[in-house]
C-alpha cells in the first residue's frame, strides 16, 4: 500500500484500528523494560538518585520538540500538499505535545530544586521550553476558536510554521547562551557523555515514550476523524429538519 493511500480517512481508520493494539502492547512492553532498567540503574556520582528523574525528563523534553516537529510537517502538508489528513494530524498532536512539554517543565523543576537549589530560573533553555508550552496552548485555543476545520487548519498551520523557529532555539540555547541548564550530553558531535549503565535505561525510556506518543497520536487522529463525521452528520440532520 502506497503512503498516499492513507490520505483516505476511511482507509486510515481501518488500518489504524489494526495497528493500534500492537502499538499499545509495544508501548507497555517498552515501558516495563525501561522501568526495570531505570530501577536498577546506579546513582550518579554527583547527583545521586535524582538522576532517575532524567529517565522521564529527557524523553519528555525530546517529545515536546518532536510534537512540534510533527505539527510543523503536518502544517506543510496542509499548506503545500493539502493532504486530507495533515490538519487532522496537527490538531491531534497539539494536546499530546502540550502534555509532554508540561511533564518536561514539572520534572525539570523537581530535578532543579535539589540540584540547583531552585525550582525555576528564567534562563534560555527553561524559558524557550515554557514558550513552547504556551505555543501549544495557543494552537489548541486557535483550533477551538474557529468552527470550520479547514479554515482553522490553515490558520493553525501558519502559526505552527512561525513557531517552528523555537525548536532550534530550544536545542541550541545551552550553546548560544550562558544557562544554568547543562549543555547537551546525549545528542552531541563527540558522542554521549553518559555512562552506558545510565544511557541504556534512558534510551529505552525514550523509545517507550516515543511509542506512547505515536500510539496516542494515532488514537487522537482517529477521534478527530470521527469528530468531523459527527459534525457533518449534525449539519446534514439540521438540513433535513422540518421547516427548512
Amino acid at each position, binding site marked *: 500500500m502506497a503512503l498516499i493511500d492513507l490520505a483516505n480517512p476511511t482507509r486510515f481508520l481501518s488500518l489504524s484500528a489494526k495497528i493500534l493494539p500492537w502499538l499499545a502492547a509495544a508501548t507497555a512492553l517498552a515501558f516495563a523494560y525501561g522501568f526495570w532498567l531505570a530501577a536498577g540503574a546506579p546513582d550518579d556520582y554527583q547527583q545521586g538518585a535524582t538522576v532517575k528523574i532524567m529517565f522521564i525528563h529527557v524523553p519528555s523534553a525530546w517529545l515536546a520538540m518532536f510534537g512540534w516537529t510533527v505539527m510543523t510537517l503536518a502544517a506543510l502538508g496542509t499548506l503545500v500538499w493539502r493532504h486530507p489528513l495533515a490538519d487532522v494530524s496537527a490538531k491531534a498532536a497539539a494536546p499530546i505535545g502540550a502534555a509532554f512539554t508540561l511533564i518536561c517543565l514539572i520534572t525539570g523543576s*523537581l530535578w532543579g530544586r535539589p540540584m540547583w537549589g531552585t525550582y525555576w530560573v528564567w534562563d534560555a533553555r527553561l524559558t524557550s521550553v515554557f514558550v513552547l508550552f504556551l505555543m501549544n496552548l495557543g494552537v489548541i485555543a486557535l483550533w477551538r476558536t474557529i468552527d470550520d476545520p479547514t479554515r482553522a487548519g490553515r490558520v493553525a498551520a501558519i502559526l505552527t510554521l512561525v513557531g517552528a523557529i523555537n525548536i532550534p532555539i530550544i536545542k541550541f540555547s545551552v550553546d548560544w547562551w550562558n544557562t544554568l541548564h547543562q549543555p547537551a550530553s546525549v545528542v552531541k558531535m563527540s558522542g554521549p557523555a553518559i555512562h552506558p549503565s545510565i544511557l541504556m535505561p534512558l534510551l529505552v525510556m525514550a523509545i517507550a515514550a516515543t511509542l506512547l506518543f505515536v500510539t496516542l497520536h494515532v488514537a487522537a487522529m482517529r477521534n478527530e476523524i470521527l469528530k468531523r463525521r459527527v459534525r457533518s452528520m449534525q449539519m446534514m440532520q439540521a438540513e433535513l429538519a422540518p421547516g427548512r
Partner: protein
Amino acid sequence: MNLGPHAFFIVTAYAVTGIIIAILIGWIVAEHRALTRTLADFDARGITRRSTEPKSAAQKSAA
C-alpha cells in the same frame, strides 16, 4: 531501592508524570467512546453520511 535524601522529588516527578499521562489516555479513550456512541445513535436513526447525502440532494431539488 534507596532513593536517598531527595526521594520526595523523585517520587513526585514520577507521580506527576503518571497523572498527566493517565489524564491524557483517559481523555482520548472517553472521547472515542462518546464519538462512537454518537455515531451509533445517528446510525440507529437511519442517518448515515452516505445515505443522507442523496436524500438531502433529492429534497433540495424537490423543493
